[in-house]
């Protein structure tokens, strides 16, 4: 036990003495939180919008004004002819082109079906989908108002029935993407920093030759590993704390659940990541190799965590793979506890899986650390 204290003491001294490393550990992650939480949003604004008006009537101009009034669209281009609009789309000047057919107003009054031409640049499929929803909504509202106008004009006693769904958004009432993203980004920075630090730490001692010196001492493997990993565990918990405070101060992210539960889960989660880092450093000879391998896993884990894209929309085999992704569990727990106020029983499945993961990962790390080659 005393041996562990000597190692912890040494590690902390080395970490806090490394002037180049300190800002990387504490400042960069927080910048990440502030920048990414603002930038990683699904909201699409400033869509450059162009139109071809073949009708030139009061109604067609009213429709275009609807788009102009929307904050999402930037109505900048008028094309006299579809050829020009196609060219502009090709050159990337517009993302959405609305084509209003001839006799638009007249056919509307005649109650005919009218096809409006909508062309969307769908290179980014997700964005195109969102744009499509915006456009449909604007046209729908326009259509509805128009029919109300027509009803009033014709003095018809039978009013057309307008059915409208009123969505209720639970847990994130204002559909604020920051509320959704901040807990996730917090997961990222806790994970990345602890994984990289632990992954590079032992391999660094291999590089400078001190690991050989350690291996010649009668130190017990688990003493050495606990002493090595504990400081990074503390740093991980510290990062979570700073991150939560910032989330509250800057983004006013709600914390509906128990803070203690959050910390309890994180304390186990970090063990998974540290075990993983150690496992990586046992199989690499240089910090460079360790870094590349850690990156490889981090990128896969992040993209398959449900942080940016919903896991439900992944193919079945990919959904199965996410079961082995610790980040997925942490993202789920963070969002559940912070935004839904979930309690211990709600997060039990994730908690059990993470604990199991931690046990297996660290057993593998201790097993793969060999004092004898």
């Amino acid at each position, binding site marked *: 036990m005393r041996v562990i204290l*000597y190692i912890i003491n040494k590690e902390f001294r080395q970490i806090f003495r490394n002037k180049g490393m300190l800002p990387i550990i504490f400042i960069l992650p927080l910048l990440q939180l502030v920048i990414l939480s603002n930038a990683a949003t699904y909201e699409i604004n400033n869509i450059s919008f162009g139109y071809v008006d073949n009708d030139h009537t009061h109604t067609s101009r009213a429709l275009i004004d609807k788009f102009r009034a929307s904050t999402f669209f930037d109505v900048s281009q008028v094309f006299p002819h579809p050829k020009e609009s196609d060219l502009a789309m090709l050159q990337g000047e517009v993302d959405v082109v609305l084509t209003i057919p001839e006799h638009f107003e007249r056919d509307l009054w005649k109650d005919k079906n009218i096809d409006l031409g909508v062309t969307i640049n769908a290179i980014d499929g997700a964005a195109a989908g969102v744009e499509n929803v915006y456009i449909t909504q604007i046209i729908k509202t326009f259509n509805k108002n128009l029919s109300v106008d027509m009803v009033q004009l014709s003095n018809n006693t039978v009013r057309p029935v307008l059915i409208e769904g009123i969505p209720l958004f639970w847990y994130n009432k204002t559909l604020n993407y920051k509320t959704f993203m901040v807990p996730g980004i917090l997961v990222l920075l806790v994970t990345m920093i602890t994984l990289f630090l632990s992954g590079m730490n032992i391999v660094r001692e291999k590089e400078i030759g001190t690991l050989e*010196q350690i291996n010649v001492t009668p130190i017990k493997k688990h003493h050495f590993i606990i002493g090595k990993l504990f400081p990074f565990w503390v740093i991980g918990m510290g990062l979570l704390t700073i991150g939560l405070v910032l989330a509250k101060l800057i983004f006013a992210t709600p914390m509906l659940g128990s803070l203690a539960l959050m910390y309890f889960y994180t304390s186990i989660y970090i063990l998974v990541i540290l075990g993983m880092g150690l496992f990586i450093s046992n199989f690499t000879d240089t910090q460079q190799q360790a870094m590349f391998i850690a990156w490889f896993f981090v990128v896969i884990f992040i993209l398959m965590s449900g942080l940016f894209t919903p896991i439900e929309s992944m193919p079945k085999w990919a959904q199965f793979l996410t079961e082995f992704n610790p980040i997925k569990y942490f993202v789920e727990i963070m969002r559940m506890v912070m935004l839904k106020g979930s309690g211990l029983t709600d997060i039990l499945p994730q908690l059990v899986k993470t604990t199991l993961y931690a046990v297996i990962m660290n057993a593998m790390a201790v097993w793969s650390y060999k004092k004898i080659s």
Partner: protein
Amino acid sequence: MKEETVIKVEGLTKVFGDFTAVNKISFHVRKGEIFGFLGANGAGKTTAMKMLIGISAPSSGSANVAGFDVYTQTEDIKKSIGYMSQKFALYDDLTVKENIRFFGGIYGLSKNRISQKSNLLIEELGLEKVAHSLVGSLPLGWKQKIAFSVSLLHDPKIVFLDEPTGGVDPITRRQFWEMIYKAANNGTTIFVTTHYMDEAEYCDRVSIMVDGNIEALDTPKNLKTHFGSDSMNDVFLKLARS
């Protein structure tokens, strides 16, 4: 007086794939002896030493260090030996005192013992002024002397030195060997590899390894007589070329 044997090696072999790095070497080292382990680069010295200090498993043969078996009792061996490698192995980003405390700590020395040893070591090496400086800022010769002293912290029976004087000036080398003599006089067995043939002359006995085999093993004086040379340098060249 019956001399105590602290290292017993019989037919020790290490094979990497189809390359035999150490080929059935056998020798004994007596307590308090300064045993020089010589050989050209790549002759297998370091590989052999790594098996003796318990960080590399032998392929075959047997060896017993400080009364413990190199196959089954490596952790017991590690309690009884000190080691200083050619790669400088103190922490550059810790001070002299912090290094001493760390290594004392992981060898399980008590707090009092560590501070006592630490003061003694600093006084003996005249390091009062740099005790709180980072080791990385010290000249190589000083680092080597500190590393040697640190390897003796837990009063090991045997100290293994792997090219301890590589890259240091003649004066420092001289001082280093004085430290080695002092440790040997206190009953510590010294097992040292070196490239400097003048250092070989300081050893009680030397073995010379060529291509994984021990080609000669005797006192420097007997070796010179046997090979009809007037220096160890000559002996080494004759062996290494043949």
